[in-house]
């Protein structure tokens, strides 16, 4: 589903990604772990082209991100083409980024109606089902300011799912939440993984990574230090850097 080969990204002089090579299979749940500044969020943002990469190849579902290749040359995609590709990838942010001037339901139906031009009654039905699925059937008319952090994040997940994405990106979805609200959000994500969604999750939730993750990737300073099944990496890390990190967080 996602394939990265030597992906590099610079911000001015500072190189944030120093050649990332990764492979995510369909229906796989990959958890990205690492200290802050290790480049895991940047890598996630590159996948739906919120950041452009400077070198390497990055493709989603066999198609390059941001470019079209013809006759051995790369052509930049037009804005509408990039938007079209983003519409197929759902993203959930650390700070939810719900639209504060819209109700929960309006947040969910906005993009399917404006971007996918789906019939409104169909979208309304889909949105109501999704909000029910994330346990917020009674919050449909609430504005983000009236919802708790956990509820907002679940609306944000429903908003992304309303676009029927083939891939979901989670950028520290529970880091801004009160501890007691984390569980509800993880439950929704666990259910999503069980339904076979392909997911890349940047997280500090070791329990979730161990239980739900198929692969765990440990990144540090812009490189992948270690990859493996969560059980292996968490209980028997091979690299010194992974050991010291885990010793601090576990």
């Amino acid at each position: 589903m996602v394939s990265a080969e030597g992906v590099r990204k610079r911000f001015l002089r500072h190189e944030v990604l120093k050649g990332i090579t990764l492979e995510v299979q369909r229906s796989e749940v990959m958890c990205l772990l690492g200290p802050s500044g290790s480049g895991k969020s940047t890598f996630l943002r590159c996948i739906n082209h919120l950041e452009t990469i400077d070198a390497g190849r990055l493709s989603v579902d066999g198609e390059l991100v941001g470019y079209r290749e013809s006759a051995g040359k790369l052509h930049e995609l037009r804005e509408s083409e990039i938007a079209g590709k983003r519409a197929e990838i759902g993203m959930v942010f650390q700070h939810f980024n719900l639209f504060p001037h819209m109700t929960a339901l309006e947040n969910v139906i906005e993009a399917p109606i404006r971007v996918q031009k789906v019939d409104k009654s169909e979208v309304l039905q889909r949105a109501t089902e999704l909000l029910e699925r994330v346990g917020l059937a009674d919050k449909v008319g609430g504005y983000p300011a009236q919802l708790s952090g956990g509820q907002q994040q679940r609306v944000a997940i429903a908003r992304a799912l309303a676009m029927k994405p083939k891939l979901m990106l989670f950028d520290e979805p529970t880091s801004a939440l009160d501890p007691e609200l984390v569980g509800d959000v993880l439950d929704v994500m666990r259910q999503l993984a069980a339904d076979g969604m392909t997911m890349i999750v940047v997280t500090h939730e070791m329990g979730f990574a161990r239980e739900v993750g198929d692969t765990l990737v440990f990144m540090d300073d812009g490189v992948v230090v270690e990859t493996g099944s969560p059980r292996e990496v968490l209980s028997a890390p091979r690299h010194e850097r992974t050991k010291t990190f885990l010793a601090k967080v576990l």
Partner: protein
Amino acid sequence: MSSQDATGTPTPAGRPEDIKAVPVRHPGRWISAAIVVVLVATLVRSVAINPNFGWGVVGQYFFSSRVLNGLAVTLELTAIAMVVGIVLGVLLAVMRLSPNPLVASASWAYIWFFRGTPVLVQLLFWNFFSALYPTISLGVPFGGPGFIHANANSLITPFAAAILGLGLNEGAYMAEIVRAGIISVNEGQTEAAQSLGMTRLQTMRRIVLPQAMRVIIPPTGNETISMLKTTSLVSVIAYAELLYSVQLIYSANYRTIPLLLVASIWYLIVTTVLSIGQYYIERYYGRGASRNVRLTPMQRLRQGLLIRHDKGAL
């Protein structure tokens, strides 16, 4: 009324006694209050007894048809110039934030020019525009055939010059206000919209501008109040708004001070009305920002009376 202690259980002895303590003395406050009272009394007395104010003349002209006509023109100029300014401002702000460097610099240059020269000079320029370009024509640029030709003198009337001078200048200020509103919206909002596949235009129209309104509205109210008074500059091109109307009257009867007072009082009245309107508009757009909406002065007054009433009953 049953009294309760901090834990919520009723106490048999009633609530603890209110603290009674000797208050700290504030001699400084008394002295400053006395100074203010003396100064204000002096001012009021001099305004009342100085015959040069000519209050009788003020009353005589306050509702005269020439003054009221001038007031109507002032209100009309304010409204039209603000509409022109707001439309131009949104356009210039979006241009300024465009990724196209030429479009962005055109907007920058416009703002630089119109903010950088006094509006009084701009008004005079528009008034004497026919000296610069005697005829105005619409056609193919660079000397191609023209389709419409007009005499600049008949096209740019004093009214048109006033609207051009005030509106184009206001556009530059409004552009900065709208731009401030747009950049005040969290970047995460744009990212969320983009990650859902929305285009730049959709993001601006559906997500960013509606949120920017909260920041844009209050200074726009301020600009409207400022515009009301700036219209008085139009008197220099002999267009009969409020100030020029009273100037015409006092140039005939020499009662300069009373007539300037007439104009000033009218400006104050309209400004007051606009300020009250602005207060309520700000309150309306501030709704989303905080969960506790501040009460209106009337509500506060009513609540204050209720509390006092409650205390009296205890």
